[in-house]
């Protein structure tokens, strides 16, 4: 048992992840549902009563409770990983990325996330707080505008060979490249 835990505590190679993400997508299809995370954000707005004033949120959100449970599971999964399945190693990113990021003032990884952005100390600075808040706003606004996020478009949509999903994924990359190469040097 201990050997198994030790084995699982190493970082998992990309193909295990790809296989299991596809498995989760298919699992949800056989549960009669579809794989898509960002719709939960709309469900949460509706559950908070946004439907009283705004038509977009006036729908039977209770029929989507299954998806909220899926989110609860994802949170629990993250907790299980950090509590039982980690050896505390730093992310093994490429040397080129480490060098690029150091020029932006982000030190080499010593865990999964950069302290400069994810530590509580960073969060309680104006810049760190705004990075999270504005980043989140764009993710919420953009995913609903585009009708889905990475799971709904890049995984479910592309798997179903949907042209709209391909357009959305191209948009994700245009936005990501603009942020990474043009804006981050000024923000960080």
């Amino acid at each position, binding site marked *: 048992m201990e050997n198994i835990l030790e084995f699982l505590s190493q*970082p998992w190679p*990309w193909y295990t*992840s*790809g296989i*299991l*993400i596809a498995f989760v997508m298919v699992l949800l299809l*056989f549960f009669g549902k579809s794989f898509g*995370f*960002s719709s939960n954000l*709309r469900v949460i707005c509706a559950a908070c009563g946004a439907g009283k004033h*705004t038509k*977009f949120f006036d729908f039977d959100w209770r029929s989507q409770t299954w*998806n909220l*449970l*899926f*989110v*609860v*599971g*994802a*949170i629990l*999964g*993250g907790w299980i*990983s950090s509590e039982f*399945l980690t050896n505390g190693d730093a*992310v093994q990113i490429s040397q*080129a*990325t480490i060098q690029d*990021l150091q020029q932006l003032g982000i030190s080499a990884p010593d865990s999964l996330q950069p302290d400069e*952005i*994810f530590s509580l100390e960073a*969060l309680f600075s104006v810049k760190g707080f705004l990075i*999270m*808040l*504005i*980043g*989140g*706003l*764009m*993710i*919420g606004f*953009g*995913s*609903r*505008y*585009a009708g889905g*996020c*990475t799971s709904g478009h890049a995984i479910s949509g592309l*798997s*179903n*060979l949907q042209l709209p999903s391909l*357009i*959305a*994924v*191209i*948009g*994700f990359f*245009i*936005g990501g490249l603009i*942020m990474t190469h043009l*804006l981050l040097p000024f923000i960080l």
Partner: protein
Amino acid sequence: MKGLKFILAGILFGIVMSKSEAISWFRIQEMFRFQAFHMYGIIGTAVVLGAIATYLIKKYNMKDYQGNPIIFTPKEMSFPRYIIGGIIFGLGWALTGACPGPMAVNLGYGYWAIAVAIVGAIAGTYIYGVIKDKLPH
């Protein structure tokens, strides 16, 4: 309990995403800098296998566990909403290094800072819902 299977599927997703480092800001930066295959391998494998599964489900008219046909709703064709919405989403994705799924996983992992991004994402969704009819779709 009927909902348990969704929680279990979510747990599997959360473990996979964190153990393959797909929830890491560093990995997303590496992806947008084209400096490693890792994230492309994850997304690529998932899409290829997902496409094969979707094809087989359609071809053999497979049913879900309750015996209902598995239906795929085609996305409505348009250009502006997908490209503009996609770009805005991508800006946020590269900034926080997390999309909605990994946000939840990060929270569970103990990166509390992501809670602010989650609140932001809910607020962003709300703003979209309010001004939706004024936007080009």
